[in-house]
């Protein structure tokens, strides 16, 4: 992993542990390893999809990358600069380059402020515009870019529907001219017909403005549609990472395989598929992950070795990394088929 000109963001060995407090004196009695040694790179102008089930650490990763949560250890290089080394005011400058869009369009907007202020406040704050007049012009621009009517700039959040609110959130994130946007389940809370509108909007904006996304979602079909490359997380670790084609068509890790086959097919004639893998059991707690390979408790192909040996994530073909003891064998078997 070398930083070249094409790399916008490089995450190295990122760890975030949340202490579990207990006992009379609230001492730390354990750690929830929400993100445990995660490394990845995002190329400029690309979309990296981050998929996984709830509690796998994908949202924590997104927020830690933006320095909204302080990491336990690790580095995040943005254009080659480690953002965790920056002073407060230097970090504040970087804030304009990296933005986030949240899942819940209802709690993401302050109900007390009119839309123009919600979108425009950061512009004044960062002196992107010099006066209110300029700010309003830019707000209008952004609103029409995001499919809102500028005439509605004076309204308050409660007068908008969920989909429109999400457009407002996107406009707010774009107000500071960012290069990199974390979309944290940005379309998950929306109705089906609205979801596709927002996905299209995100894709349009990405192409027009040359944005780079870290697209966090549990929905594989959405990730497949929007991403250029994909990382799959399980219990705080990345288990497989590669281009979209590698993950969706040449997947190697058993968890990726299970996730893909668990997603209900859109074709009613394909149901009762015999090859379908249904994982047994529940997600183990990230406070107490299984020894050995973290997936071995649910893995249909687990061997005794998996319970003991911790697999390292390694590249099995250019750009395709897998964390499985049997990665090479499984890849060879797939190729043979």
């Amino acid at each position, binding site marked *: 992993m070398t930083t070249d000109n094409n790399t916008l963001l490089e995450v190295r060995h990122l760890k975030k542990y949340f202490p579990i407090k207990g006992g009379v004196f609230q001492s730390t009695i354990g750690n929830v390893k929400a993100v445990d040694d995660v490394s990845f790179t995002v190329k400029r102008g690309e979309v990296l999809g981050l998929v996984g089930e709830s509690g796998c650490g994908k949202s924590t990763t997104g927020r830690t990358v933006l320095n909204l949560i302080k990491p336990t250890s690790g580095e995040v290089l943005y254009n080659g600069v480690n953002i965790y080394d920056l002073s407060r005011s230097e970090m504040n400058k970087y804030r304009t380059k990296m933005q986030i869009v949240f899942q819940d369009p209802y709690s993401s907007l302050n109900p007390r402020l009119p839309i123009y202020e919600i979108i425009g406040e950061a512009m004044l704050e960062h002196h992107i515009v010099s006066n209110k007049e300029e700010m309003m012009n830019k707000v209008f621009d952004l609103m029409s870019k995001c499919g809102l009517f500028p005439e509605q700039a004076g309204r308050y959040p409660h007068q908008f529907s*969920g989909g429109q609110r999400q457009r407002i959130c996107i406009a707010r994130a774009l107000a500071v001219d960012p290069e990199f946007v974390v979309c944290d389940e940005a379309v998950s809370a929306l*109705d*089906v017909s609205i979801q596709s509108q927002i996905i299209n909007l995100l894709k349009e904006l990405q192409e027009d403005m040359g944005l780079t996304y870290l697209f966090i979602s549990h929905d594989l079909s959405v990730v497949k549609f929007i991403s250029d490359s994909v990382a799959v997380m399980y219990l705080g670790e990345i288990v497989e990472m590669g281009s979209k084609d590698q993950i969706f068509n040449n997947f190697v890790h058993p968890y990726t395989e299970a996730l893909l086959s668990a997603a209900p097919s859109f074709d009613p004639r394909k149901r009762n598929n015999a090859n379908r893998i249904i994982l047994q059991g529940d997600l183990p707690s990230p406070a107490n992950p299984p020894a050995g390979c973290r997936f071995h408790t649910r893995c249909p192909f687990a061997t005794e070795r998996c319970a003991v040996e911790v697999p390292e994530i390694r590249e099995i073909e250019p750009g395709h990394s897998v964390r499985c003891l049997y990665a090479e064998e499984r890849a060879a078997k797939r190729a043979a088929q």
Partner: protein
Amino acid sequence: MTETNTNKPLLEVKHLKTYFHSRNSTVKAVDDVSFEVYQGETLGIVGESGCGKSITCMSIGRLVECPPGRYEGGEIILDGEEILSMPDAKLRDIRGNKLAYIFQEPMTSLNPVFKIGYQIEEVLMLHRGMNKEEAHQAAIQALDRVRIPNPERVVNDYPFALSGGMRQRVMIAMALACSPKLLVADEPTTALDVTIQAQVLDLMNELKKEIDTSILFITHDLSVIAEMADRVMVMYAGKVVELADVNTIFERPLHPYTRGLIESRPDMSTSGTRLNVIPGNVPDLSDLPEGCSFSPRCAFCCDKCRAGVPELVEVEPNHWVRCYRPGGEDLDN
């Protein structure tokens, strides 16, 4: 695989109207909805938030809070008995016995202060007249049936000790404890992770074969419908807009809304630069447009659509559509 039953339906809903009244507006949450569920089949109801799918299913067990809700008309006939006019005592006997529910939130559907076993036993003692010991054994069996490991131990657990997927299994066990004729599942897997959802859906399909219960399956997720349903009913703004068997719905949808929903989905098998979208917003039920409720978002909308409300018509055998121009008639040339 879905030969439509010609025998008498298990559940018949005729012209059901459930409205919500507030001081200055009336929300027609369910507006003249009719459908049947046959013995052993799964009818899927699909639609977006506020389309009336949940209220429809709540109405079947008269679970809508009145007021503000009111059943303005229609009939619900379950196994030969009319539910809307039934006395309360009789209805209580039917709920849980012939008719059982599973809801979206397994967290809030179980009482946190009672043991899992007790909550199942209660249902059995009430409806099956079992004594404590029989009910306890039956509860263990019920948990075993939904593939819960160590049912003897889980009956003595409290709900918080179980994960979301396990709780949903307990809910299913409880719902099926009295072998109901109709199981109403309202978004039962929406709160669950993909791999857990696959487990629960798989379990429901297996159980359906085992005990021959009819299922009314409500969801916003078309792919879950594709997985589960024999027939599908699509709802929009309180009305049924399309009703057909599952293959027809996915292969030859005729209502523009159904087509839009299916085409707008970034499916696993498609990959392009843009998704097809349905423009506009999900309608506000207290402020519906004139004419067809879907007309402002419809690509095929004509003057007729803006003027009058179309009827639900059987355009081909067993395929009902509420549209003046099903399949974009007169426009595709």
